[in-house]
């Protein structure tokens, strides 16, 4: 009896704690602190990983820097909090971090059930396959009867089963505990195929003794839209976080780069003038300066520049733009207009 009262009391306390809304406006908190606290991945190359001096870099880190540039005018005023998959959402709920940019998949339950809001998508990921070129396989549909190296206990394993069943193919799974072990298995010919999220496949491929002997197949068998997350209930902060991301896309679409931003400020194109704050007061309506997009591009460049530098062709990962190209170039990246 006593125990059940205790359990009820404990549950109520958790519920109260979880339901507590974000009290003070996050924007004011960040400004008075003079620092943006950003939750990132412990180490996912290309997304967020520390270098030999302990400096963070990656596409998620660039988002944090852009947001800091918008809010504080200085991209270096970010405190990075490395989080693992289990504690990342709690850290945001409790206010330990201001924004979570940790390759988090946007799902309905996360968006609606946890008091959190997804800002948008900064990387469209999905599960894919890596095969040895010597197999001569050009499509995942040819993989009938293959042995597949996969990490245990992940949604990857479930997606794999679903995909093969849906296509009436047989496979044999070779299960490993961590992703470097799956790579060792692949490298030592324990399996023909390695499956994981595409963003990770490229990283794993570059670790092979001869990366050119393996290739990533074009098929993507699951939807993993990754994006930054903020707490629900602070609409102003949500808007700033969302429009920081959209501005990065629009900057690329308008052709504004780190190098040409000062010339572009003199542009007569009304779209560009509105985006860069030369016309109108779009920034100040949101609670930041009108030239917030200029600050972003000076800090990290536009979305395309950031992409190429962190995960794209200028990085060791060499991921093609694919779904992450602008909508004008056949991708899914589409920024709402500044009007």
């Amino acid at each position, binding site marked *: 009896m006593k125990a059940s009262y205790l359990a009820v009391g404990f549950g109520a306390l958790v519920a109260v704690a979880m339901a507590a809304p974000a009290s003070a406006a996050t924007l004011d908190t960040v400004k008075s602190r003079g620092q943006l606290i950003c939750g990132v991945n412990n180490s996912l190359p290309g997304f967020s990983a520390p270098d*030999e001096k302990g400096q963070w870099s990656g596409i998620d880190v660039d988002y944090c820097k852009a947001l800091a540039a918008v809010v504080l005018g200085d991209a270096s005023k970010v405190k990075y909090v490395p989080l693992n998959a289990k504690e990342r959402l709690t850290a945001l709920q409790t206010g330990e971090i201001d924004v979570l940019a940790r390759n988090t998949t946007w799902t309905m339950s996360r968006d609606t059930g946890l008091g959190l809001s997804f800002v948008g998508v900064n990387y469209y990921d999905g599960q894919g396959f890596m095969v040895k070129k010597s197999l001569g396989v050009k499509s995942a549909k040819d993989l009938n009867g293959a042995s597949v190296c996969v990490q245990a206990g992940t949604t990857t394993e479930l997606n794999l089963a679903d995909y093969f069943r849906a296509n009436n193919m047989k496979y044999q799974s070779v299960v490993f505990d961590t992703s470097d072990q799956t790579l060792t298995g692949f490298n030592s010919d324990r399996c023909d195929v390695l499956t994981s999220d595409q963003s990770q496949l490229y990283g794993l491929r570059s670790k092979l003794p001869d990366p050119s002997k393996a290739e990533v197949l074009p098929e993507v068998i699951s939807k993993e839209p990754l994006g930054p997350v903020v707490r629900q209930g602070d609409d102003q902060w949500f808007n700033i976080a969302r429009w920081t991301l959209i501005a990065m896309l629009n900057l690329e679409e308008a052709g504004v780069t780190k190098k040409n931003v000062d010339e572009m400020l003199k542009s007569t194109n009304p779209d560009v003038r509105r985006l860069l704050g030369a016309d109108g007061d779009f920034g100040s309506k949101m609670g930041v300066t009108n030239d917030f997009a200029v600050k972003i591009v000076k800090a990290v460049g536009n979305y395309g520049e950031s992409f190429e530098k962190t995960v794209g062709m200028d990085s060791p990962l060499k991921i093609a733009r694919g779904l992450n190209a602008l909508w004008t170039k056949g991708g899914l990246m589409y920024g709402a207009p500044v009007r």
Partner: protein
Amino acid sequence: MSETTDTFVPKPSLPPPSGSVGITYWVRSRLFDGPVNSLLTLGAIWLLASTLIPLIDWAVIEAHFIGTDPNLCRTGGACWLFVDERLRFFVYGFYPDGQLWRVNLVLGAAVLAIGYLAIPNLPGKRWVVPAAIVGLPVLTILFMHGGVFGLPIVATDQWSGLTLTLVLSVVGIVAALPLGIVLALGRRSQMPAVRIICVVFIEVWRGVPLISVLFMASVMLPLFLPEGMQFSKVLRAMIGIVMFESAYMAEVVRGGLQAIPRGQFEAAAALGLGYWRTMALVVLPQALKLVIPGIVNTFIALFKDTTLVLIIGLFDVLATIHATIVDPEWPDIAPEGYIFAAMVFWVFCFGMSRYSQALERKLHTGHKRN
């Protein structure tokens, strides 16, 4: 009649029978003593050769030691230049570049203090011990954290790498031992309230895995704290480790207390000593000496347990290695990284173990049965 006494002159001793000395005899009698042993010997030689030779080949002969280019490691053996390249990150982690001397100062002071204590027969040790126990934490807070003498503050979330491992384990060791002694005495106390509190504390903390303690500290605890009230994750982990290890320590110390014969307590009482003086002057010095192996065992376990903070997102030395072996610029360097981690831990644990053995010999007062 002349008597002559023959003095006994021993003959020079014969050489041992042929075939019972020398290397051939040793080999035959120890290694090839019958068909079963011969087979076992050959098997062992084959096993050693087939594992050691490729290992040495990989780790030393074909390994890369010099250079900075990751592509050197695409072929050949181990890639130690990776460890060399990332050593700064493994040791200091996120600690800001210009401030590394502060970490060095604190670590240097700790090494000096421990070295002074480890060398036998140096004067003034009774002052060095309390000075180190009080001084080192103060030094750590003043210099590593900063905020005084015009030093910029380095928040605890930037403490990482080997530095964090050492800070966590030294704090754990220094705090868990006294707390454990108090708990052990409390568990044997005549006062029911004290006894029950201590028993409950020990059994609760000892019955929970350290991983869940750390998870509670990092995930659950913030949910109960009022909004905006936060204290650093390092501190939370530190408190969790100290609580957990003090419960273990209490049971080790209690084992020592129970080994002290009743006569010692009675003799102390006959001398008119009260409870605290009985414990401090008669019982504890004997009890603690008895359980040195157990105490050091707990210390070593604690030192290795600090790696569990990896799962709550703190960057101890293992986590820094974990974070760098995925770097896509390098080929697969996971084995080198983990071997380096193993060597670091082995060096510290072996050091502790040797020190405890020296301590046991020094405190040996002749009652040991051996």
